[in-house]
C-alpha cells in the first residue's frame, strides 16, 4: 500500500453506461425533432396553397390598445417553423443542448403547436386570445386537482380520490349555497367536504394501512353513488331551494385587465381562477421554501429518517392529506358556483384523474402542474372550436392528445418523472 500515489479519477463502469444512455436519448430526441419537422411540412405547410393567409384575432373585450389582426401567410409560416425545428433537431443530434434541453423541447413543442394553429386557421380567422382565455378556464378544475395531488403525494400518500372530492365539493357547494343564499358559504362547505373525505382517506390509508389506491377508488365510488343518490332523492324534488346556487361572475381587475393580449387572458376571470393563482404560489413557496415544506417532503421521501429526527410522520401525513382535500373541495365548487350553477350527476367528468396526470406530467410540483394543466385545457379549448372551424382532423383525435402526451411523459420518454420515494407506502412506526 503506497500512500503517496496520486489517485486518478477512476471511471466507474456505471458512469460510462449512464453517459452512453444519455447520448442515446439525446440522439433519439434529435431524430424525433427532425421527424416533427417533416410532419410539419407534410401536414401543415404543403396542403395549404401558397396564397392562403391565417388570420389571428388578438382582441377580446376592452383593452388599452386594440391590437391589429395578425395575418400570416399560412404556408410560409409553417415552412419557417419547420425549418427552425429541423435546425434544433440537427443541433440536438450532433452537439446536444446540455442542460437547456428541456427549454428547447418546450420551444419545439411551441413551434409545432403554432404551426398547427396556423394550419387550422388557414383561410379563416381564429381568435387566439379567446382560445388562450378558454384554455385557462378549462384547466382550472384540473389544476386544482393536481395541486391537491401534489400536497398529498409530497407527503407520501397517493390520492386517487381527487375525483370524488371534486364531485362532492361541487354537490355540497351547490346545496349549501342554494339553501343559505350565499355562494361563499357554499365554498366553505365544499372545502369542509373535501377535508372530511380526505380525512377518511387518511384514516384508511394511514391507520388501517389499506392500499391507498383501493382506498382512493372506494372514496370515488362512494362519492359518485352518494351524490347521484342524493341528487335524485333530495335535489330533484327541491330544486328551487337546494340546487340553484348563485354563481360568482368574472371580476375584471381594473387596469391589469386592459393590457392588450395578457389582460383578457389572465385578469378577467372569477374568484376561482385568482384563488388558483394564489394557491399555486403559496403551495410552491410553502413546499420548497419553508420548514413546514421541508418536513412534508422529508416524510414523503424517507419517513423513517424523518421520524428519527423527531418529525411526527403520522401528523404530517394526516395534515397534508386533509389540506389536499380542502384544495380539491374548493376545486369542486368551481363546477357549480364558478361555472354552470346547478349540480348535475357526474359533473366532474374524470377531471380528477386528469389532474393526477397533470401532477405527474408537471413533476409533482405546483408550477409544473399548472403548465401541464394548461396543456389539457388547451386541447379542450381547441376541440370545442373545431365544430365551428373547418378542420381536417376529427375532433376526437385532438381530444386524445393530452392523454397520449401524459402516457409519453409517465413512460419517462421525456425526462424521468420521479415520484417522492415513499409515495404510496404506509409508514409503520416501530
Amino acid at each position, binding site marked *: 500500500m503506497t500512500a503517496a500515489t496520486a489517485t486518478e479519477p477512476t471511471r466507474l463502469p456505471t458512469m460510462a453506461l449512464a453517459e452512453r444512455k444519455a447520448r442515446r436519448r439525446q440522439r433519439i430526441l434529435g431524430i424525433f425533432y427532425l421527424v416533427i419537422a417533416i410532419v410539419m411540412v407534410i401536414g401543415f405547410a404543403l396542403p395549404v396553397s401558397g396564397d392562403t393567409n391565417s388570420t389571428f384575432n388578438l382582441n377580446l373585450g376592452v383593452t388599452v390598445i386594440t391590437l391589429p389582426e395578425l395575418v400570416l401567410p399560412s404556408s410560409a409560416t409553417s415552412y419557417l417553423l419547420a425549418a427552425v425545428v429541423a435546425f434544433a433537431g440537427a443541433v440536438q443530434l450532433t452537439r446536444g443542448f446540455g442542460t437547456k434541453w428541456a427549454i428547447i423541447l418546450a420551444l419545439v413543442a411551441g413551434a409545432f403547436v403554432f404551426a398547427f394553429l396556423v394550419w387550422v386557421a388557414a383561410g379563416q380567422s381564429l381568435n387566439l386570445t379567446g382560445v388562450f382565455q378558454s384554455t385557462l378556464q378549462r384547466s382550472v378544475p384540473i389544476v386544482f386537482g393536481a395541486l391537491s395531488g401534489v400536497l398529498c403525494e409530497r407527503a407520501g400518500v397517493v390520492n386517487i380520490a381527487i375525483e370524488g372530492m371534486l364531485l362532492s365539493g361541487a354537490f355540497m357547494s351547490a346545496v349549501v349555497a342554494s339553501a343559505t343564499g350565499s355562494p361563499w358559504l357554499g365554498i366553505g362547505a365544499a372545502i369542509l367536504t373535501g377535508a372530511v373525505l380526505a380525512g377518511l382517506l387518511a384514516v384508511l390509508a394511514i391507520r388501517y394501512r*389499506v392500499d*391507498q389506491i383501493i*382506498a382512493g377508488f372506494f372514496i370515488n365510488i362512494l362519492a359518485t353513488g352518494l351524490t347521484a343518490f342524493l341528487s335524485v332523492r333530495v335535489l330533484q324534488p327541491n330544486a328551487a331551494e337546494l340546487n340553484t346556487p348563485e354563481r360568482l361572475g368574472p371580476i375584471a381587475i381594473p387596469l391589469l385587465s386592459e393590457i392588450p393580449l395578457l389582460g383578457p387572458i389572465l385578469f378577467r376571470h372569477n374568484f376561482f381562477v385568482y384563488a388558483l393563482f394564489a394557491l399555486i404560489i403559496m403551495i410552491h413557496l410553502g413546499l420548497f421554501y419553508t420548514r413546514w415544506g421541508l418536513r412534508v417532503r422529508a416524510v414523503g421521501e424517507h419517513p423513517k429518517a424523518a421520524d428519527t429526527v423527531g418529525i411526527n410522520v403520522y401528523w404530517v401525513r394526516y395534515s397534508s392529506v386533509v389540506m389536499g382535500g380542502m384544495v380539491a373541495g374548493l376545486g369542486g365548487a368551481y363546477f357549480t358556483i364558478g361555472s354552470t350553477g346547478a349540480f348535475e350527476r357526474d359533473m366532474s367528468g374524470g377531471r380528477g384523474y386528469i389532474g393526477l*396526470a397533470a401532477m405527474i406530467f408537471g413533476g409533482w410540483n405546483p408550477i409544473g402542474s399548472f403548465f401541464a394543466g394548461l396543456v389539457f385545457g388547451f386541447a379542450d379549448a381547441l376541440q370545442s372550436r373545431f365544430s365551428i372551424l373547418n378542420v381536417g382532423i376529427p375532433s376526437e383525435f385532438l381530444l386524445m392528445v393530452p392523454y397520449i402526451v401524459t402516457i409519453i411523459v409517465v413512460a419517462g*420518454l421525456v425526462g424521468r418523472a420521479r*415520484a417522492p420515494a415513499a409515495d404510496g407506502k404506509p409508514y409503520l412506526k416501530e
Partner: protein
Amino acid sequence: MTDRPTDAVPLPSRGSLRKLQGLLIPVLAVFSAFVIGGLIIVLTDGELIGLWFTDPLAAIGGSWSAVMDAYGALLRGSIGDPGRIIGALVSLDLNELRGAAGPLSETIVSTTPLIFTGLSVALAFRAGLFNIGAEGQLYFGSLAAIIAGFAITGLPWFIHLPIAVLAGFVGGALWGFIPGILKARTGAHEVIVTIMLNFVAYRFVDWALRTEFVQREGRPDPISKVIQPTAELAPLFDGLRAHWGIAIAIIAAIVISWLLFRSTLGFELRAVGLNPRAARYAGMSISWSIVTSMMIAGGLAGLAGASLMLGGSGTLTPGFSPGYGFDGITVALIGATRPGGVVAAAFLFGALRAGATPMQAATGTPIDIVVVIQALVIMFVAAPALVRAIYRIRVERTLGTEVFAKGWGS
C-alpha cells in the same frame, strides 16, 4: 419494492373452520354495507324524518318497512318473486316460467361481463398489477367483436361466432399490451397509463362510430352496423335475455383458475406478483410476465365487450357500458382474487345491478344506492381490520401482510 400484493383478506391456512373464517369477512362486509345502505335510505326519506319527531315508534316501524321494501324489491328484481316462481314451476306453463325467470335472467345478463372483467382485474392483481384499464379494453374488445360480427359474411355460426369472440379477445389484449409493455420497458405506472388509455379508447370508439365503415347506413347518429345473425350468442331460453355468454364466462373462470394455480405460466405470474426480486433470482422474466398478464387481462376484458355485443343488442353505441370495467375492479377486490370468488362476487353485483331498476320502479329508491353499497363493500373488504373492530372478531394472523400498497415508483 417492499410490500407486494397478497390477498387483502388474511388467508386461512388449513382446516374448514379457518376456511369459514376466510369467508366470514366478505360476508360480514356485504352485510354491513347493506345495513349502512339501509340507514342512508331511511335518513333521506323526508316523510320518515318528520315522523321521528311526532311519533318515534311509528317511525321505527316505518323505517324498518322502508328498508325491507327497498331490499325486498331489490331481491325480487334480481332473483325473482318466490311465490311467482313456485306457481310457475307447479303450473309448468311456458309463459309463466318465462315471466318468473325474468329477474334471474336479467341478473345473468349483468353477471356475464362482470365475470370477465373481474377475472381480468383479478389476474392482473395476482401478477402485481392494477388493471384499471378494463373499461377501455372492454371498449376495444367490443369494437373488434362488432366489426368481426358485421363485416364477415357467409360463414356458418359455428365458425363465425368463435371468430367474433376471438376478435373481442384480441382487441382487448391489444389494449392491455400497451400498458404492459410500457410498464415492463419503462416502469410507467399502469394505473395512470390505463386510466389515460380508457379515455383514449372512449374517443376512439366515438370516432369509429362516425366512420363510413362502422356507422350504420342512413343513420346520422353514432351507431354501428348490426351484426350478422351467425355471430349472435343465442339466448338460453327463448324470450329471455340471458345468453350463452354466461357459459363462456364460467368456462373462462375455470380456465383462468387452472392457468393461475396449475400451470407453469400461472406460477410465474403469481411469483412475480408476490416477490419480483425472488422471481428474477429464480430465472423468471419479470418483463415477460408483466406483458403476458396484461395481455391476458386485456383479452378477458375484451371478452366482456364481446359478450355484451354478441349476446345483447348486436350493435355498438357510445356509452354502452355502464362501467362494467370499473365494476370488475370491485368484483376482483371482493372475490379475493380467486376465480371462484370472482364468479360469486360477479353474481352478487350482477344481481344488485339487475335488481336496482325494478327496485326504483317499485319503491322510488334511486338506483344509485346500489353504487353506494358497492363502495361500502369495497371499504369493508379492503379494511378487514375495520370489520373485525366492529364485530369484535379475533382472527389468528397467518402469513402475509394485509397490505398491498405501493406508489407510482414500483
